[in-house]
């Protein structure tokens, strides 16, 4: 009986070792692909960083109207943000190449599905980036405009609009990625409705102030119509 047990163990060990041996080339290929991708990413990032610095990319980004981009990058530099993003993409591609080197249907299917998912992922990232830039731009426009109109609720309005656009962008991005389904739509509806209601209240209260001020001004103007407007600018 002990002979049979020993034989069964030997057989299972041989089987396991042969399976590990069959995986080894794949693991080696994955590691090689990762190392190569890291080297390529490092080289391309260095060239890209130098080129972008050479063309004064950071300043150009601000000139093109995307000063907010600087705030996302850890070192507040769009150049570093771009080079790091490119490096990450190259390493990720190297990982995918390495994974597909494994012999078997599962890794191949995984890679195929991942590649099919990539356009949606890129679209979602693009929507998030554009949404964030638009949200910041609109928030600043509204803040400055509302302060110039002397509205006490200026900041509330500005923050409300910022969140409105951000929530919209995030929802579009999540829906594009196919996460959540109906719950996301429901949550978006509730959030969007809530923000719109809050904004409507704020605008209503702000307008009340504005209308009363302009009425006061009209009244004082008509009561002192003989007086000349004392302040001139040009």
């Amino acid at each position: 009986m002990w002979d049979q047990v020993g034989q069964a163990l030997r057989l299972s060990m041989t089987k396991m070792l042969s399976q590990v041996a069959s995986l080894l080339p794949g693991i080696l290929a994955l590691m090689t692909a990762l190392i190569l991708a890291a080297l390529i990413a490092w080289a391309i990032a260095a060239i890209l960083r130098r080129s972008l610095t050479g063309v004064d990319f950071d300043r150009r980004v601000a000139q093109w109207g995307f000063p907010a981009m600087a705030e996302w990058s850890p070192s507040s530099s769009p150049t570093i943000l771009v080079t790091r993003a490119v490096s990450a993409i190259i390493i990720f591609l190297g990982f995918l190449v390495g994974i597909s080197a494994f012999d078997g249907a599962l890794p191949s299917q995984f890679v195929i599905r991942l590649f099919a998912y990539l356009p949606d992922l890129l679209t979602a990232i693009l929507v998030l980036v554009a949404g964030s830039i638009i949200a910041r731009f609109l928030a600043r426009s509204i803040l400055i405009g509302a302060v110039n109109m002397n509205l006490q609720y200026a900041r509330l309005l500005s923050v409300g609009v910022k969140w409105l656009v951000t929530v919209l962008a995030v929802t579009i991005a999540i829906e594009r990625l196919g996460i959540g389904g109906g719950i996301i739509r429901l949550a978006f509806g509730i959030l969007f409705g809530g923000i719109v209601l809050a904004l409507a209240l704020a605008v209503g209260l702000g307008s009340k102030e504005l209308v009363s001020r302009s009425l006061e001004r009209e009244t004082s103007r008509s009561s002192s119509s003989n007086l000349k407007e004392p302040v001139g600018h040009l």
Partner: protein
Amino acid sequence: MELDAIPQPELEQIERIGGADLVVGILGDKRPGENCTAVAMTSEVLAELSKPLRAMVVCNNGTHAPAAAVAGDSQVPGIFTCSLPPPSPGESQQQSISNAYRTVFAVGGKLGVRACGVIASQSPTLTRRWIYRLVQPVLDLGFDLVAPCYTRQKMEGLLNRSVLAPLSRALYGQQLQNPMGPDFGLSGKLLQRIVAQESTRRRGAERSPLASIASTAACGGFQVCESNLGVRSQHPTDWENLSSLLAEVLGATFLEMEGRAAQWQSIRGSQTVPRLGQSEAPQPDTGSTVDIHGMLESFQLGARNLQDVWGLILPPTTLLELRRVSRLPQDQFRLPDQVWVRIVYDFALGHRLQTISRDHLLRSITPLYLGWIASYALEMQTAGPAEVDSRIERLSKAYEDNKSYLVSRWRWPDRFNP
């Protein structure tokens, strides 16, 4: 420069005339039912001048239909007329004046005139004397630029007093009361220079010829003088659109400043220019009061909410000072000259560097400007004309004294950040 705005028959008439000595542009608004007397006034001015001259009158108010223009030829010898169409609906007053200026300069350039007089103030103030005082120094005394000098109440022309005049003085070294006019007399030589300049460096509608007249004259070594024109009536202040006015006027000024950086950085100090004509004494105050409380409220609201925006433009020391000033009670409220001057310089630098959208930058100065007006109004509540003049002189000196700050920040915006 634009001749497209002129209707075709009048354009043909300009081609036919070939040349003229003087072009007079009357760009002010016309009230309904008011007759345009520009031709008659120009004719009287021509009669007063030493030599007989041929003149072209360009009106901005649509008073001269082409048929009337032709009739005008036969009625007043030596004077031709052409009219500009009314401004398009979405156009602001400043844009409409700038476009009209471009057309008048284009007509003057085309006709090769020796002098050009442009009056953009409202028509009630337009008199024969104004045209004469703007063109006579050019034709008879050899000046290239005649800038206007108005008689004003202490609370009039505040953007001019707080920014335009002292900034122009510090940058270009000439002490002009109104560097952006809007009424000017120009020699043919200066006009041709501006026409050539505009055609080579046009960058969209934001660039205003009004902002470049005084700087071109100062940097080009032209002979400049001022002419006393008397009281100028203005549109009442549109408080709702103050930020648009500031954005237009300061945007044009900062763009001009950016274009001439190489020249103004080497200019030190300033000089007076000859002032011609008798100045009129300002009329006594009408007794109306300025809404200082409202302005202070706007300033404080800005100080509470716009710190993030201002923080992208102003250095920390200025932000701290603004925070301190915003907490002062109304009777003690003062915005120190040095702080105000540095704010203007930092906004000019921010406009150049485009740290944030230019429109945002220019509009976010509105609460600061209202703060300056409130501070000035509180200080000048009981002041007479002499005290007002000395107050403005002190501010102008502060602009000159802080020019080294501007130059340092302009050259090394990242390294020099107090």
